[in-house]
């Protein structure tokens, strides 16, 4: 059996990428994710990969675009302001249907904000971010083991759908240490080569063109509709979530990422006090598991959505819940992270206890 090792979140993500066959990493320093590029700068030469510290996040994402054009697995990581700078390139990648794994270790915003954990980039991640009609597959880990597993999945999904996949982490996931078990190394030579579209040199074949561009609206609409079909397929097959002690629950907490795991402690403590609480934790923020959440909340006394933002996933929760249960919301912002006790108090107050 593979060994358990105690690692930091950023390193867990980096090593998981290496094991998934990623040999290309581009990055620019920004707190709180610096340990990830630092780790990759040490690790990439060991596995004959390439690490480059770039001149900006703008350059970074375009290098990722270029590397992805060759069909090879490539990754970058950044934190909120950096991800804002990358949006143009992300849009180009989605338009050109390029696979890559992007990591946003979210910090407090807007603007320069601070460097503490936040979830305030949910809208940016799931509702667009850049210009044009596109979607990213967005994965939100709540433990380091899950982060490791989701990084592997992210590369597979990116390759499968030719679409950028975003790991939406937060400062807590980035900075904590936990034991994890890494998967076996994938040999990059056994991974999909994308010979049907990648830029590899037109040796004895017609040239390949990778682009998000076509000046002819008739053609561009066709490209758009092709994307729409792809997104529909992803929506129907790739939704992921966790259900925790929901069977007999009167109250459903909805939360993702770090708050998802903190809410598990809330569930345990509430049950010690005789309040039957369960947790619904979306793992794919896009596609969002609307249908399952709708089924679950029927007949419940209360849905309490908890987030580190002003109520971003809340909109999706409400879309799913409809009139089936009352929805309450608790937020911390600016890098503040609530304790389980604090959330439990809110829960009791909402229930009038």
């Amino acid at each position: 059996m593979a060994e358990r090792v105690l690692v930091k979140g950023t390193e867990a993500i980096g090593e998981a990428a290496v094991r998934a066959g990623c040999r290309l990493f581009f990055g620019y320093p920004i707190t709180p994710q610096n340990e990830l590029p630092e780790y990759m700068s040490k690790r990439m030469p060991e596995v004959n990969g390439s690490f480059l510290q770039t001149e900006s996040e703008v350059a970074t994402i375009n290098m990722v675009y270029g590397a992805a054009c060759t069909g090879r697995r490539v990754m970058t990581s950044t934190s909120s302001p950096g991800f804002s700078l990358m949006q143009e390139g992300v849009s180009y990648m989605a338009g050109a249907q390029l696979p890559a794994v992007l990591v946003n270790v979210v910090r407090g915003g807007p603007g320069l904000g601070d460097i503490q954990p936040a979830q305030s980039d949910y809208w940016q991640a799931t509702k667009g971010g850049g210009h044009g009609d596109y979607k990213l597959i967005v994965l939100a880990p709540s433990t380091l083991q899950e982060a490791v597993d989701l990084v592997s999945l992210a590369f597979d999904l990116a390759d499968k759908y030719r679409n950028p996949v975003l790991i939406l982490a937060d400062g807590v996931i980035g900075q904590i240490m936990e034991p994890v078990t890494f998967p076996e190394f994938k040999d990059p030579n056994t991974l999909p080569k994308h010979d049907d579209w990648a830029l590899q040199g037109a040796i004895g074949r017609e040239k390949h063109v990778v682009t998000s561009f076509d000046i002819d609206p008739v053609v561009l609409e066709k490209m758009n509709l092709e994307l729409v079909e792809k997104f529909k397929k992803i929506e129907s097959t790739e939704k992921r979530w966790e259900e925790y002690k929901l069977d007999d629950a009167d109250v459903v907490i909805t939360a993702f990422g770090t708050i998802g795991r903190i809410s598990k402690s809330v569930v345990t403590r509430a049950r010690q006090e005789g309040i039957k609480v369960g947790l619904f934790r979306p793992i794919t923020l896009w596609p969002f598991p609307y249908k399952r959440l709708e089924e679950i909340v029927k007949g419940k006394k209360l849905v309490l959505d908890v987030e580190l933002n002003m109520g971003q996933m809340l909109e999706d929760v409400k879309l799913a819940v409809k009139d089936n249960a009352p929805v309450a919301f608790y937020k911390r912002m600016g890098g503040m992270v609530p304790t389980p006790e604090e959330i439990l108090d809110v829960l009791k107050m909402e229930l009038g206890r």
Partner: protein
Amino acid sequence: MAMQIIQKKPESLTEKEFTYCPGCTHGIAHRLVAEVLDELGVREKTITVGPVGCSVFAYQFFNTDATVAAHGRAPAVATGIKRARPDLCVFTYQGDGDLAAIGTAEIIHAANRGEKITTIFINNAIYGMTGGQMAPTTLLGMKTTTTPYGRNANNDGYPIHVSEMVKETKGVAFLARVKINTPQDVQKARKAIKKAFLAQLKGLGFGMVEVLSTCPTNWGLDPASALKWLDEHMVPEYPLGVFVDKVGEEQ
């Protein structure tokens, strides 16, 4: 009497007809690049990175694998490709708005890293695609759609000298400024472009050729006058020459 082929379309160009305006020198620059790719025998391992601007259609004209970069980011995209596949030959083709304004950071840093790519920089002192606005390379006093009274240093700053800036970075293996408004100049430009590709193929570093070009449409001149205007006005501001040459003599 047997016919002999003395001139033909380079294999590195597609059948697609150029869509450039009459008298525009993009066509000449394209052909020179294609001839060099043919001569070096690298068409099948070349990746074209097109820009945003008039030459956004470069991906259609070059008969190589190709992509289109975001405005100004072609050197970053080319870097990504080259880092993923160092065995490929990667070049960017960029205008002065793309390279000298929005893409200033990317070109300087690609050059400074000695990125083993080649950049063809078309300097015609104006934004073409968007309708003749001021470029960073627009000459003082020159009228454009956003400098209707002529470029004024006090308000708009000065014509930017990209090659002179790039020259100062240590990663450059070949760098020249050429023009393509006479047959002799075209031949010189071809030699420079070949060396700029050899710089990457020999693993020496970054290669760039700044090509002084015309834009008769947005300059408001007929093609012949535009060629003359280039000599009279652009060359004094942008002196021709080879700034860096680590490639040495061609075989």
